[in-house]
């Protein structure tokens, strides 16, 4: 892959192009971008024909390893790789170590292995097993094995361990990666650890930056799910930690931050210099039967001129990003979820129908919500890119803050 930084705005937000992607090395994506989160290899509630309706922005797919680990032996026998197995081979596949919708219990990582929680419980994964999985799965991108357990806040000892171990894992992964014929076209990402201890974070960033990795994943920042437990980045000095990490990282490699970050957090992270996120936020909103209804521009005019037009697409609860479809007020509301939204759900169905489906527990309700929420969330990233291009990023931040933050 080839990462080209197109611009860095004054306040830090970056626009970039990543090219030479995919099996034939001919695909391109632009950042800031969103990886489409999957669960056990499926985009939740969506069959592939539905995913196709999301268009080209649904190209990069996020595969968390824990629920896929049980398929290791099968994939070895299958031999065509996980893209083929999941019928997602025309997508960019990124394999992360953990599942960012949950917080794994602390204290289960040891020196030589990391604990992953699969369906049947805890699995201990050491570097050998981990790399064997990568060779069987053959992803396009993968995050090297890492220990993101930083212990109690402020605990220096455990934070240091997470840094040390992660670097050791990375070095061994890189060794095996280099020797592997099968992984020749895959890219390996290094993880920045260190909990909330500034010095450890700097150490991790400096050292990881020295390794020949394709990009970086910022771990252990408490941005994992569930939804309401993700605190604003502006609190607890997280912004400062991220800043200190990014100061040590090279400009010309992408940075990934996982977890269900809400729009304000996404914008804060983009401003600091993060390039890639995942769609766990859109997924978790779906799981509580809500639709994303926060304001995004329905067309490509500049944000400022559109603020007036956005009135109708914003919903009743103007201070939130989402609207719960369980609310009885939608029983006979025959408008689309978001007026002006061009997604399959909004162009074919109504609030009343989706309300009915979630009310009686029909699976189609989740399908229609997931489709809209992903569409809406991916659209948000388009809007972020546009705002960075036009220099209206601050306006976008203000709009989100005034219309949607409590």
């Amino acid at each position, binding site marked *: 892959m080839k990462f080209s930084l197109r611009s860095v705005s004054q306040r830090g937000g970056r626009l970039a192009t990543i090219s030479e992607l995919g099996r034939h090395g001919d695909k391109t994506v632009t950042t800031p971008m969103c990886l489409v989160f999957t669960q056990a290899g499926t985009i939740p*509630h969506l069959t592939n*024909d539905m995913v196709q309706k999301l268009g080209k922005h649904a190209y990069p797919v996020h595969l968390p390893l824990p629920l896929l680990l049980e398929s290791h032996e099968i994939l070895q026998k299958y031999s065509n790789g996980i893209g083929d197995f999941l019928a997602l081979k025309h997508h960019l596949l990124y394999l992360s170590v953990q599942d960012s919708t949950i917080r794994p219990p602390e204290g289960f990582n040891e020196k030589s292995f990391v604990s992953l929680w699969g369906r049947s419980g805890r699995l201990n994964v050491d570097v050998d097993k981990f790399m064997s999985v990568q060779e069987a799965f053959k992803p396009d991108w993968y995050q090297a094995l890492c220990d993101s357990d930083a212990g109690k806040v402020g605990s220096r000892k455990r934070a240091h361990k997470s840094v040390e171990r992660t670097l050791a894992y990375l070095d061994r992964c890189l060794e095996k990666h280099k020797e592997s014929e099968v992984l020749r076209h895959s890219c390996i990402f290094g993880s920045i650890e260190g909990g909330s201890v500034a010095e450890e974070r700097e150490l991790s960033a400096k050292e990881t930056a020295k390794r020949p990795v394709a990009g970086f994943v910022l771990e252990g920042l408490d941005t994992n799910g569930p939804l309401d437990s993700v605190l604003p980045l502006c609190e607890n000095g997280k912004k400062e930690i991220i800043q200190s990490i990014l100061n040590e990282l090279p400009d010309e490699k992408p940075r990934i931050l996982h977890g269900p970050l809400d729009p304000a957090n996404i914008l804060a992270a983009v401003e600091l210099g993060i390039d890639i996120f995942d769609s766990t936020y859109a997924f978790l909103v779906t799981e509580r039967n809500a639709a994303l209804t926060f304001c995004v521009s329905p067309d490509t005019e500049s944000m400022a001129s559109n603020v007036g037009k956005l009135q109708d697409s914003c919903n009743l609860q103007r201070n939130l990003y989402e609207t719960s479809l369980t609310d009885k007020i939608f029983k006979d509301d025959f408008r689309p979820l978001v007026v002006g939204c061009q997604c399959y759900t909004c162009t074919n169905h109504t609030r009343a129908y989706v309300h009915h489906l979630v009310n009686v527990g029909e699976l189609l309700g989740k399908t229609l919500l997931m489709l809209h929420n992903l569409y809406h969330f991916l659209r948000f990233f388009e809007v972020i890119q546009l705002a960075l291009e036009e220099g209206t990023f601050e306006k976008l931040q203000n709009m989100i803050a005034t219309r949607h933050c409590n």
Partner: protein
Amino acid sequence: MSAPVNHSALTLKVLAECSVTKARACQLSLPHSVVDTPVFMPVGTQGSLKGITPEQLENSGCQIMLGNTYHLGSNPGAELFDKVGGLHKFMGWKRNLLTDSGGFQMVSLVALSEVTEEGVRFSNPYDAKDMLLTPEKSIEIQNSIGADIIMQLDDVVSSTISGPRVEEAMGRSIRWLDRCIEAHKKTKTQNLFAIIQGGLDSRLRTICLNEMSKRNVPGFAIGGLSGGEDKNDFWKMVTLSTDFLPKHKPRYLMGVGFPVDLVVCSALGCDMFDCVYPTRTARFGTALIPTGKLDLKKKGCAEDFRPIDENCSCSTCRQFTRAYLHTIVTKETVASILLTIHNIQYQMDLMRSIKEAIIQDKYPEFVNDFMQKQFPTRNYPEWTVDALASVNIKLS
């Protein structure tokens, strides 16, 4: 071949009749689209087919599906359908719909129900509310839902019951049919079908057939079967009914069924079927295949890199292996959707091949071929042998 009969909302054109059995292939014209029969109608109880979008259902070739009046009458309720203009609009389904009367669900799902001449009364002990479903009320709700075919409210008794209750129910069903006909407001856009009752008693069935066929309804259903009765009794009631029912009107066998049932009962002269089986079994991880069933939860599927069915053209079989499905079945919602898509396609393909065999006048060969695949050791269930023999098919 009989001339097409025109009811304002329904036309049946018999395209071919099997020269050996009572099977026929027809074209059923309904307000929303044409339906090829014999037809299997999948059941989308609450206004959706369990995770499948209307577009996906259309792509499978499905031309008519069911909704349940009892469920839809409660949620979202008849008033909402009046506001939106019917279930078609509400769910975005452009083809045909059929609704049942709500009676069967009331009796089977609701613990404390009581049938009187007035209707079915339900007393909820928890909120002390009394609900009464009369023939008039059922038709009223079905008129609001707006399905192309609606069913009379009938007095259903379990097919395992015998005695005077069966006769009482049969008699009442005739009287309720008349009340339904009287109450039906939308004869130009909705077709009211009668439902033949009479349990497993041929005398009672004959009386019912006699009486109900005097009424000018666009179609007839054979009801009160597929409720756990002995299959040896079941088929006899089916064939008795199709012997008697007018040829120029569609025959709908309610609640049937498994693939074998569809093949045999088509030979007995039935045109329309419905059953929750294919969609329900999909959600439990079972796929329908020509040789019977495939349980994707079984360990044997874990390393099986073939599709469910190599000859199936559904999107599930075109993309995925049994091994992949095994990893997600009953665990991820997408598995449910993928198997439902396959099972629906299986049913559509089955009915299409039944129809084609009838048109080519090769139905006996088709039946033999089908049965041999399902029962490779030739251990055919007794009822299938007898039923098919009654229409001149000898299973080899």
